[in-house]
């Protein structure tokens, strides 16, 4: 019930994100979601892509530092209050969220969560008013 997220280490240099996008595009790998975490001198690009193993391979070939991270991906109703209801359950269970990012489309919203305890997080989420995705 977890999904492999691709994390790419990037210097803060213009054109770097585009490099990643270009390589993925050339290899027919589609990006479902991504987020960029940045510090003053470097950033971490986090991506959910169609063919994660192939993505790792082609990015490594192009000398990028990449790694895979397990994340939980849920789909819930795209209405106000929906996320809060789900997060209440995680808070009660004492699960800490290291980071998360989301994208909404039509009636549903997808949320990518990197929790402190992933197994326990999945356990809690399956009983919540959302679906835990096996793949995107």
């Amino acid at each position, binding site marked *: 019930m977890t999904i492999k*997220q691709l*994390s790419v*280490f*990037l*210097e803060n240099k213009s054109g770097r994100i585009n490099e990643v996008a270009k390589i993925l595009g050339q290899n027919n790998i589609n990006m479902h979601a991504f987020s960029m*975490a940045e*510090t003053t*001198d*470097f950033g*971490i690009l*986090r991506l959910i892509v169609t063919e994660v193993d192939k993505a790792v391979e082609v990015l*490594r070939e192009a*000398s*990028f*530092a*990449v*790694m895979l*991270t397990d994340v939980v991906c849920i789909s819930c109703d795209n209405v106000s209050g929906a996320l809060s209801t789900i997060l209440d359950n995680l808070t009660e269970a004492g699960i800490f969220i*290291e980071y998360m990012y989301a994208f909404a489309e039509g009636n549903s919203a997808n949320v990518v969560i*990197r929790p402190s305890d992933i197994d326990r997080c999945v356990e809690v989420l399956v009983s919540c008013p959302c679906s835990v995705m096996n793949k995107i």
Partner: protein
Amino acid sequence: MIWNPNKECMSRDEMHALQSKRLQKLVTYVYHNTPFYRNKMQEMDLSPEDIKTIDDIVKLPFTTKQDLRDNYPYGLQAAPASEIVRVHASSGTTGNPTIVGYTRKDLAVWSEVMARCLTAYGITRDDTFSVSYGYGLFTGGLGAHYGVENLGATVIPTSTGNTEKHIRLIRDLKITGIACTPSYALYLAETLEKMGLSKKDISLRVGAFGAEPWTENMRHEIEERLGLKGFNLYGLSEIMGPGVSYECEMQNGSHICEDHFYPEIINPDTLEQLPYGEQGELVFTTLTKEGMPLLRYRTKDLCTLMTGECECGRTAVRMGRITGRSDDMLIIRGINVFPSQVESVILEMKEFEPQYMLVVDRVNNLDTLQVQVEVRRDFFNDDIGRMLAMKKMLADRLKSVLSIAADIKLMEPGSIERSQGKGKHVIDKRILK
């Protein structure tokens, strides 16, 4: 004004005779008191009697910073510990600082040469003089301090730090002279302006600047903003500290206190002595030093030597501006930094590739050092906290080795330019100014 006309304006013949006599005495002294030099001379089949005049100096062995390091801490000290009254230290490249012990007479010579410098700058007993080099192991603070006292001016031992308070003292005590690094002088000017004051509110007249390379442009800027006349003050702790050479009002090279520090210019590759006027590495022999006398110490500073009587009346050989280094040492905020120090820290940490680049710049008149390192692919982590911890660990280790803070920039693997042959590890943007 000339502090010691007998020495500073000596005829060349008299100087030659004095230097010859002092060199003979020095060689005999180190031969009998420094095993390092005795061994070297014996290897070269050289005895003290072979040195008859100063021109025989070319027969003598050189001394390098590496020799001082290899013989840490007191290996090159000639005087017994009971005669040493003070010790200074300069930063070393591999953790070991260079230790320099001074006898009472050494300190007297130091105060004498510093008084010569200050007098050449126009400082008299009537001046109030602020010493704004760091006080402590660094030779700048105490070296200049005792020179001012010897001269008889009033010394204000401000050291560095708390710049606003310093400016209030400059204004309220009507301080007329200051010794500091040129970049600190610019910082003072900036702080002065920030406080809503200008050069009209202060009485600074003379600045003695040294301990780091500086340019004519910096001189003009400092003079313009602080309303003083800036003079070069040269020295290095291995030889003595500040006071080895100084500019007079003609500002046509720095007069070397040749009766104490004998200068030569050599070709750093062949080690041959070069004639006056040619550019090469500056070498000093401490003609009168007792604590840690050095024969032909290679400063690694590149410059030229000029002869001929100066219009000021002094006859000593003058050195031109330092135009570079024959090694890769950087002087950042007055601290000696070698790229190899950074390298040794990076090589010890498995998180980083053995590739790095030092970027030195001057921002708001303060030197900055950025160290760029490549994160090893296996150590890249999705957790930003861990990445920042990795960065901080490197910053802390560098700080403890270099004694100055460096800004770390984590780079992607493979992003630092690889060079063929001798690696290029430094981008110094300061000299462009």
